[in-house]
């Protein structure tokens, strides 16, 4: 299998459907070599996505549909999946079934078979089936469903060539599959048949476009969207109450038709599972159940979550901090020296050297210094996601949020916001209710995204070095708590309404492979490097000019940025950081939160004094040796784990200058107020664009910014003034 196209043959369109978290995206990634977003929690795929490949000379277009439990049009995922399957009529459907959860997954299989398209079932996670001692009779399942069933382990690529061969074969059979073998009971089928006959008679030609039995089921379910799509008029809808067979069905079962159909599908799925699945003795309590007894415990659940997050931050700093020192040393030492030497050799004007060293290296370099921390944190968050713990964290928080009158499902996008607020905003699409969607989007900026980490790391390193992990953990938790408080306020004012029940699938615990951890850590973390090379670079250059205009200005305080900072500084005076430097940094931080650090690096940075420069060879040797030391330090920090690493950066003379200046201007209390303000004050510019794109209006971004600024100011005020009243310093 290889990505690409083959012009010789017609492309086969293969739609990949399945329950959330059944491994669809992993399967497509393995088959097509793409890198679709994957996570061991439901709802990773909200919109449909495509990949192209060639299998055995056949060009294939793979369409990854959102994970759904059914094809009833209740959530956006279900509507997207169903619309595509019914309107676009792919050549083949691959139904990815979580083989460890056969009965529940077969419910969707029943509905896919109703569409009368060729189906191939991928029994995924088949390795776990074997591990659990379960036995699935594949042949019996194939016979019962009337389709090919292929066992797969998508994460390891097992069974995928066979699956694609089966899909190609099914796709070449002319589009229609053999008549469905499974039936929903005599009464129901008779009622459906009578409606199908009427459809055939009244709408000749309809069968060319839609499977009539499926439309008959939709008539019985009263599915208005499907009926409108097929242009069925009111007369057709009225048949449901007039057809004798349907009347008989209703009178003999004391339930509505939609409920009867759902019950019938569940019945077939359960019966089929009993037929084909053999379980080992039930005396053995599985590891997942044992762990869940603690992790999902009503009392222990939240403390376990808090502990897990604390461990993430602790390990992040233990692992990342030695590399922060190393990158810092490289940027402020050899790289600055080499740049200066090169520009001097090129006879560049002095201001250009200053722009390159103070502007670009001082700005972009300061941000890049913290990239190891960002990668370390993304690694641990990916580990939690892949292990299945994050889904449980959402479940635990769901209970707490419901107690407060909030929708628990909102917590999933909020957890995604720990990485970056932008994909978190897009993840709100998984919420059915538009009010919940907007409400969740308004709360996401309160989550500490990775971009805020450099600001936290800089200040905690200077003021709370011994307890860096704990202080940063507190900031993250403060974000969650304030999001809940704001959620309650919004829910009781702007977004009144009922909370729908949140049914959350809890995947089994899995140990992600190192390869998949590395890939997804890189996927999550690399955009911070790309940001540094694009708009952080651009802003750093512009900021340098703003700090040096009017041309030739002696003191940065008198520059354009200095004047702007001075104008805004009084607003921050009661919060303990009324200096123009802090105000200017917060203004530029609107573009991206890392720029707060980049701005400080430039404002407080001083022109390097001429010094005795080591040779290039000495520099390279020094870089290699200090990297080796960083690896050793990180290793010993993680091994000796708790309580060792601090964020006390081993400063060289240049970085020491501006860090000293920061320590002169801030106290621990005002630093904490500044961190709280940075956490809360407003979404960044990219998030602003995402708001506009997702909701089609600037209104919600305006509200998020407005309340964020007020909340940030009030919280920082309480921290600073409250701390002073308590005698914690000024």
């Amino acid at each position, binding site marked *: 299998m290889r990505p690409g196209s083959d012009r010789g043959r017609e492309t086969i369109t293969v739609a990949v459907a399945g329950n959330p978290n059944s491994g669809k995206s992993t399967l497509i990634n393995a088959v097509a070599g793409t*890198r*679709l977003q994957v996570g061991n929690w439901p709802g990773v795929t909200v919109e449909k*996505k495509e990949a192209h490949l060639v299998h055995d000379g056949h060009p294939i277009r793979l369409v990854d549909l959102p994970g759904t439990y059914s094809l009833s049009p209740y959530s956006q995922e279900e509507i997207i999946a169903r619309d595509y399957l019914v309107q676009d009529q792919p050549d083949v459907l691959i139904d990815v079934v979580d083989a460890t959860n056969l009965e529940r997954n077969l419910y969707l299989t029943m509905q896919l078979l109703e569409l009368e398209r060729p189906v191939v079932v991928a029994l995924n996670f088949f390795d776990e089936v074997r591990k659990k001692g379960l036995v699935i009779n594949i042949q019996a399942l194939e016979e019962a469903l009337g389709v090919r069933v292929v066992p797969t382990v998508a994460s390891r690529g097992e069974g995928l060539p066979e699956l694609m061969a089966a899909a190609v074969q099914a796709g070449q059979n002319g589009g229609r599959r053999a008549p469905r073998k499974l039936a929903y009971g005599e009464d129901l089928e008779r009622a459906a048949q009578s409606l199908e006959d009427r459809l055939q008679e009244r709408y000749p030609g309809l069968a060319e476009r839609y499977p009539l039995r499926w439309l008959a089921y939709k008539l019985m379910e009263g599915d208005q969207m499907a009926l409108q799509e097929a242009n069925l008029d009111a007369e057709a809808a009225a048949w449901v109450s007039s057809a004798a067979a349907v009347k008989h069905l209703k009178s003999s079962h004391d339930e509505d038709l939609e409920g009867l159909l759902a019950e019938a599908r569940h019945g077939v799925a359960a019966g089929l599972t009993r037929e084909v699945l053999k379980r080992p003795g039930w005396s053995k309590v599985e590891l997942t159940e044992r762990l869940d007894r603690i992790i999902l415990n009503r009392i222990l659940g939240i403390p376990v979550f808090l502990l897990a997050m604390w461990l993430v931050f602790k390990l992040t700093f233990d692992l990342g901090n030695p590399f922060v020192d190393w990158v810092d040393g490289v940027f402020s030492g050899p790289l600055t020296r080499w740049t200066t030497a090169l520009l001097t050799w090129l006879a560049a*004007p002095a201001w250009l050297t200053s722009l390159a060293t103070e502007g670009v290296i001082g700005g972009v370099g300061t941000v890049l210094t913290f990239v190891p921390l960002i990668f370390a944190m993304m690694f641990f968050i990916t580990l939690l996601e892949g292990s299945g713990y994050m889904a449980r964290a959402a479940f635990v928080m769901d209970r707490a949020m419901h107690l407060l009158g909030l929708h628990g499902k909102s917590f999933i996008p909020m957890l995604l916001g720990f990485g970056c607020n932008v994909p978190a905003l897009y993840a709100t699409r998984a919420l059915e209710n538009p009010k919940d969607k907007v409400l969740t989007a308004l709360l996401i900026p309160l989550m500490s995204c990775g971009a805020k980490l450099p600001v936290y790391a800089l200040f905690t390193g200077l003021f709370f070095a011994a307890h860096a992990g704990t202080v940063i953990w507190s900031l993250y938790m403060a974000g969650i708590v304030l999001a809940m408080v704001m959620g309650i306020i919004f829910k009781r004012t702007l977004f009144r309404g009922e909370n729908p029940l949140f049914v959350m699938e809890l995947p089994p615990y899995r140990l992600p492979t190192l390869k998949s951890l590395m890939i997804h850590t890189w996927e999550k973390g690399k955009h911070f490097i790309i940001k540094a090379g694009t*708009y952080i670079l651009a802003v750093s*250059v512009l900021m340098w*000019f703003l700090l040096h205009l009017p041309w030739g200005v002696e003191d940065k305080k008198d520059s354009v940025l200095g004047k702007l900072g001075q104008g805004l500084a009084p607003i921050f005076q009661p919060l303990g950081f009324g200096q123009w430097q802090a105000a200017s940094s917060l203004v530029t931080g609107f573009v991206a939160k890392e720029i707060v650090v980049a701005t400080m690096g430039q404002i407080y940075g001083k022109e390097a004094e001429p010094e005795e420069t080591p040779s290039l060879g000495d520099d390279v040797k020094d870089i290699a040796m200090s990297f080796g030391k960083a690896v050793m330090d990180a290793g010993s920090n993680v091994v000796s784990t708790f309580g060792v690493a601090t964020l006390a950066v081993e400063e060289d003379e240049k970085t020491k200058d501006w860090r000293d200046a920061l320590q002169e201007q801030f106290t621990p209390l005002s630093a904490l107020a500044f961190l709280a303000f940075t956490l809360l004050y407003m979404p960044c*510019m990219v998030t602003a664009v*995402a708001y506009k*794109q997702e909701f089609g209006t600037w209104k919600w971004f305006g509200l998020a910014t407005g309340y964020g600024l007020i909340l940030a100011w009030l919280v920082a005020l309480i921290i600073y003034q409250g701390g002073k009243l308590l005698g914690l310093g000024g």
Partner: protein
Amino acid sequence: MIDVLLAGPIIIGALYLLYRSLWKQRGYCPRCDSRTCPVKLDRKNP
């Protein structure tokens, strides 16, 4: 004069880079490379 000739293009370049990365590409998020980027999908299917 030389300063203006040098500084002008640098400022224009930085402004263009900012416009291109923030507005035209509407920022960069972890999903931009994963074929799920809604911006790219919008562009493909306007």
